Structure formats: C-alpha cells, structure tokens
C-alpha cells in the first residue's frame, strides 16, 4: 500500500490550460502539504492543510488553489498554466504540523 500517492506522475500541457493534481494519504495523518521543487531541486512549501483547514499559504500566485475534501485528500488545481509553472510538485503528510513528513512520488509538470 502506498502511503502518500499522487496522480498523475507526469503531466504535459500547453500554456493557458487548467490542470489538477490529486493526492491521497492512507496514514491517518491530520496535516497535508504541497511542495514545489524547481529545476535546481530547491523545495519550497506552497500550502499546508490541517484537518481540511488551510494553515499555510505561502506567496503563491492565486492561479494555484488547493482543495481538501477530507483530511485524507489534498488536491492542487492550477489555472492558466504558465511556462514558469514547470516543476515537480510533491504532496506530503504528517501526523502533526511540524513533524516528519511523508512524501509522494511527485508529479512532473511540463508546460509547453
């Protein structure tokens, strides 16, 4: 059983499109995150949810909108995709807000 799973693993799309990335965790954790890893492998926190409530919303364009239908799921919707959005997006979860995080395999988004 995969602890944190995200789909799709690869996503190639044209500029201007809208796309979603889904994430599910079966660890029973209360907190979920989205991180962005750029081409230089730098990992930056984007959002954090605790029990479906938005806790962290870093300086991210409002084209990015997280949605948490329940505490096991945290999806990321991106509107009007731009070339600069190309990156690997990681979903993660943790039992408490700042303890060790368990990561998904990542979604490599390529905007052309």
């Amino acid at each position, binding site marked *: 059983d995969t602890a944190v799973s995200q789909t799709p693993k690869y996503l190639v799309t044209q500029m201007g499109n809208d796309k979603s990335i889904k994430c599910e965790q079966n660890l029973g954790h209360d907190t979920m995150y989205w991180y962005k890893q750029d081409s*230089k492998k730098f*990992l930056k926190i984007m959002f954090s949810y605790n029990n479906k409530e938005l806790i962290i919303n870093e300086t991210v364009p409002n084209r990015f909108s997280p949605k948490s239908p329940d505490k096991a799921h945290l999806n990321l919707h991106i509107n009007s995709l731009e070339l600069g959005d190309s990156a690997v997006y*990681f979903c993660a979860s943790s039992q408490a*807000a*700042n303890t060790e*995080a368990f*990561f998904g395999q990542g979604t490599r988004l390529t905007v052309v």
Partner: protein
Amino acid sequence: AQSVTQLDSQVPVFEEAPVELRCNYSSSVSVYLFWYVQYPNQGLQLLLKYLSGSTLVESINGFEAEFNKSQTSFHLRKPSVHISDTAEYFCAVSEGGQAGTALIFGKGTTLSVSS
C-alpha cells in the same frame, strides 16, 4: 523565520571513503531537524530525525547526524559510503512544537560516489 543552509552543493567521493554533508540552521525557537534523501526521479525519504533527547541520531543504513545547538548545525556523516548512496540529500528544519509550521528545506547536496 527559520532557514537552512547546506554548505556544499556537490560532494564527490570515492567508494568506501568517509563523507560529511554539512547543514546549518537559523531559528529563534527550539527546532526539529531532519535529513531526507532523494534518489533520481523519486520522492523524498526520511533518513533520520532529531526531535529531542540524544543529540546523536542514526539511520538504519549507516548514516548518523549530530545536533549541535551552540553551532546550530546538524551535519550528516557516514564512515564508508557505497555507490548506492549516490543521491540528493536535503536537510530540513521545523519549529518544534509550533502549530501551523512546515518543514523548511535547504537547497540540497548532491552526493556522487564513484568506484
């Protein structure tokens, strides 16, 4: 605000040699510290963590790290590396016991082990 500095972006080393990957952090409160490893095209896996207690923590595959509060460091060491240790290593910090925070990562160190 917290920050993490990984002093070496790339560390090349020969197989069976010792290695140290350096990590310094900045925080005004008590912290939790982590090392993660990322193999090519994979997600991040927790290597080891310091939450409290003994300042020397070990992983199951021979890595160890020591929390040094006075030097605000959490360097990762292994006495003898293998080819399979080739990967990207990330140091991370969070504010211990503070709700509403997330792990903050350093920029990573690429460990390249050659024969």
